């Protein structure tokens, strides 16, 4: 059991591309350095500790989360959408909660993936929980089980739109056909 577990932990590491690891490493190191900068308010001395820590964090991050491809434009596109949708989600849920009649008709729905397994699916699953009326309840390779607050609403198209955004973020092509 242990060995299999460990294999699972490491199987995602792609040994083929050292360069991609380095590149990602640099990027993440910069990201972490930025974080450090934010935390410490940019005091110069702090890099005495910050340097090693960022290095350590980067290594941990690389080991734990192998590089994946993504696109900057994708991020730029998804952020405003996400912000808006999640704000809307909040308003939506607040409305339902505060409404005297509690207008909900919850149910489960299995949404078939067009995204490939791995990081994109997980990202999507997390996002779904923050979108209006939906909550990811189970993640399988083929489908995402979504709990919806209002079955009557059009949440399916919403999901598929978001899926497109996510696909673009990870620079992926969606499986064309989702029967």
């Amino acid at each position, binding site marked *: 059991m242990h060995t299999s577990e460990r294999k699972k932990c490491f199987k995602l590491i792609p040994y083929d591309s050292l360069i991609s690891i380095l590149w990602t490493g640099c990027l993440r190191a910069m990201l972490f350095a930025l974080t450090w900068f934010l935390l410490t308010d940019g005091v110069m001395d702090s890099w005495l500790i910050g340097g090693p*820590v960022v290095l350590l964090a980067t290594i941990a991050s690389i080991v*734990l989360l192998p590089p994946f491809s993504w696109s900057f434009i994708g991020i730029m596109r998804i952020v405003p959408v996400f912000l808006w949708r999640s704000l809307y989600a909040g308003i939506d849920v607040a409305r339902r909660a505060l409404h005297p009649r509690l207008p909900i008709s919850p149910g489960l729905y299995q949404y078939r993936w067009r995204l490939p397994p791995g990081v994109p699916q997980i990202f999507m699953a997390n996002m779904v929980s923050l979108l209006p009326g939906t909550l990811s309840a189970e993640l399988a390779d083929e489908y995402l089980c979504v709990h919806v607050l209002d079955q009557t609403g059009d949440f399916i198209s919403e999901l598929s739109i978001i899926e497109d955004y996510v696909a673009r973020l990870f620079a992926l092509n969606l499986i064309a056909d989702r029967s």
Partner: protein
Amino acid sequence: MEAMTSLPLMTLMQLLFDTLLGFALLWLGWRALASPDLFQAIVLFIAFGLLMAIVWVRLDAPDVALAEAAIGAGLTGALLLTTLARLEAKNRSKSALEKKHKVWLMTENVKLKTASFLWLMVILMLLVSGLVYAVLTLQEQTFELQMLVSKNLESSGVSNPVTAVLLNFRGYDTLLEMSVLLLALLGVWSFGGIPKPHESLPGPVLNMLSRLLIPLLIIVAGYFLWVGSDAPGGAFQGGSVLGAAGVLLLLVGWRLCIRFVGLPLRIILVFGLGVFVSAAVVLIFLGRQFMEYPPSVAGALILLIEAAATLSIGITLAALFLVGRPEFRRHK
């Protein structure tokens, strides 16, 4: 705060806030101890920890708030939940016993006789009134020690007075306290290895979460370590954040530690204490007192000690979370 107090409304608001918080604390404490369901009690206790942290904030004790938030609210809660799970797992596996002690999850108020209950009440009332009286009649605070702290802050090597007290002025306490931590781990280990809980594989979401959080936790731990010297923070806060990272790894089912569970792990565990003691002892050979850090290098020295301590504390806390000794034989 000086400016604010002039505003009566502010004072009133503070009073309101404090009263609410105080009552909330008492109520939570009472419920946590009296609720019929243990799980509920633990959740309430976690909430209690959160409120405590807010209280520390309110009392202008950010260092304590950090420690409470990290250790009290985070790790203790996780530890309690895990223990509860273990206990229940055992409960289930022994159905005969379960029958016998079916009620063990319920509150088992020992049936006190009315008389002894009254006595207890009387004693507790006495305690309360005595304490309150004592507290309320306390004279004005003496600031001698506080003055001393701020006067010597210069030569302590750090500018956060709490850190100065913890690691320099009263470093000996801290040294002993780290021993307590290590000792607790030893004690836990000495109870023998505890079989691994039967657990399923982590789902991908959890997996991802931990993978994202851990580097972040490492950075934050480093941050607290660094910031400790002139702002609230320090080895314990950093260490507990690091410990949280370790706990997270353990929770996700990460078992890399099997590889170095023997000597390397133990070396890391005593590393902090070791550095602390060696620094202190080396100073003796340099003709100074035990733990007397020369002001010129005190800052660096404290940072060094704290770095080592952070590492050790983090790993120790994570190891404590296992609530048992990792098996030794595996790596043979």
